[in-house]
């Protein structure tokens, strides 16, 4: 008998949907700027890409602020609190399960429950992305919109260039996260059950 847990309240689902759409726009326009080429039909025209990227960046900052408040003032925040003690062992167990135990039919070491929405690998990656990568992306992104505030030189290198390269590295991390996030989402009770849960709010135990 499977249990369902209401892990995604309305505000989380709305935030997640907005986050997903904005991130897709930011990734496409970000790549378009990085690989800008007047003869390349695959990339969005530079001027349009810049405008869309800036607007989506501002909206994502607002949406992220709402998420932060949500995590501060609702119980959703507890899923993002890392317990460092024994973390390495838990990560190893979960990694072993994905790489081997899953195929042997072993039970998930950290199944979804009323108290647990994320397994240790998910928790670490979500905390890393939400509390480090995204804030740094916002800081560097906003700095690039107001480059007069960026240090002119840092260790003999152009400050604006370093800021941009850091922004690009973080952008790549988000893309890598997105692919892993999407793939791991197919490993629920069924390949589509996790996608269904982010729409309905109810997550099936697995």
């Amino acid at each position, binding site marked *: 008998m499977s249990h369902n847990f209401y892990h995604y309240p309305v505000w989380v689902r709305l935030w997640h949907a907005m986050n997903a759409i904005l991130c897709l726009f930011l990734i496409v326009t970000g790549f378009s700027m990085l690989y800008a*080429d007047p003869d390349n039909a695959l990339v969005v025209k530079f001027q349009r890409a810049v405008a869309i990227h800036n607007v989506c960046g501002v909206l994502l900052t607002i949406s992220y602020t709402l998420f932060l408040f949500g995590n501060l003032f609702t119980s959703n925040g507890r899923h993002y609190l890392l317990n460092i003690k024994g973390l390495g062992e838990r990560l190893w167990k979960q990694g072993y399960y994905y790489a081997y135990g899953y195929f042997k039919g072993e039970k998930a070491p950290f199944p979804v429950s009323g108290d647990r929405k994320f397994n240790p690998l998910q928790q670490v990656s979500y905390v890393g992305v939400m509390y480090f990568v995204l804030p740094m992306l916002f800081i560097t992104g906003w700095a690039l919109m107001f480059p007069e505030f960026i240090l002119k030189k840092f260790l003999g290198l152009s400050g604006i260039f370093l800021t941009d*390269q850091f922004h690009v*590295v973080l952008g790549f991390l988000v893309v890598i996260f997105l692919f892993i996030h999407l*793939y791991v989402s197919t490993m629920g009770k069924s390949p589509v059950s996790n996608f269904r849960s982010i729409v309905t709010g109810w997550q099936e135990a697995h």
Partner: protein
Amino acid sequence: MILNRRSITVFILLVTAALAGSAQDQDTVQKVTRGAEMSLFAEDNENNCLVCHGRLVYTITDTVSGLSRKELMAEHNFISRDAFYKSVHWSFSCLDCHSEGFKSFPHAIETRFETGWGCIDCHGYDPTYAQYKFEEIDAEYQKSIHYTATDGAFSCWQCHDAHYYNPLARETGSGRENILKSNEMCLHCHGNPDIMGLVTEKELTMVLPRHEWLPDPDRHLAAVRCIDCHTRMNDSILVAHEVMTADSAVNDCADCHSQNSILMGTLYKYASKESRDQQGFVNGVIFSNDSYVIGANRSKFISLTGMIIIGLVLVFAGVHTVFRVIIKPVKRYYES
């Protein structure tokens, strides 16, 4: 331990190399010692031509009656000593160029019809200056809107007054200073309705409003030279001289904001070429100057590493999926 002695040494070496790299440009700029005290003709110039032309107010005396009066020197006949002796033509005597009747005073009426040498007259077809390709510059200039729209009345002098000429790109260490001085040349006329009103009957519009289509126009205009967008790009000469009509100017962002940015063939050409040849695109072009252009300053290393990791993630997901598809049914079969 992460911070061992070896990693600290490597870090210090990296920092030192970065700082040394930024100082290297300063050392390689060659300055020629100039000045009135170095010129063989300074005294001669001072005691003759500059008695009047070196002053904003000069005194003219009637040698018959002995009467004297003060006159204002016309702006285009005034020579600033300091600027002249800092220019590339600092070592010349005034009469080397102004030889048609200027030796006597008062000047003969013929001096009003002085030819007025252009750059090509002295520097053209001379092996000493072959590297600067004055012939090609002259050919470009004759195709430019400055020449064609004025029936040749416009000359080199309107932008490059030989009395004060200094080769910006070769002598200024700072790219921003180079841009500022280059744009001052254009704005001297195009930013001054009083001057432009004399040469065109078109309704004049100010420079800034015409560039408002650019995002953050102030920053753009401070970061590039007018000629980077308003001349036809020519890789074979240092500075392109075929100034185009406003309608033909660059207006596609990706012309500059792309890996093949035209700025590499214009603004950054001189500063970048040597270091690019020696250090490659990323280190030579980006790390050796202050320029930054979205899309153009792409780090190939970061892009390649990012793409490889994304590729590996996709391969891993693909292999994992295959195992999921193959192993589960086999397992289910044996279990049943």
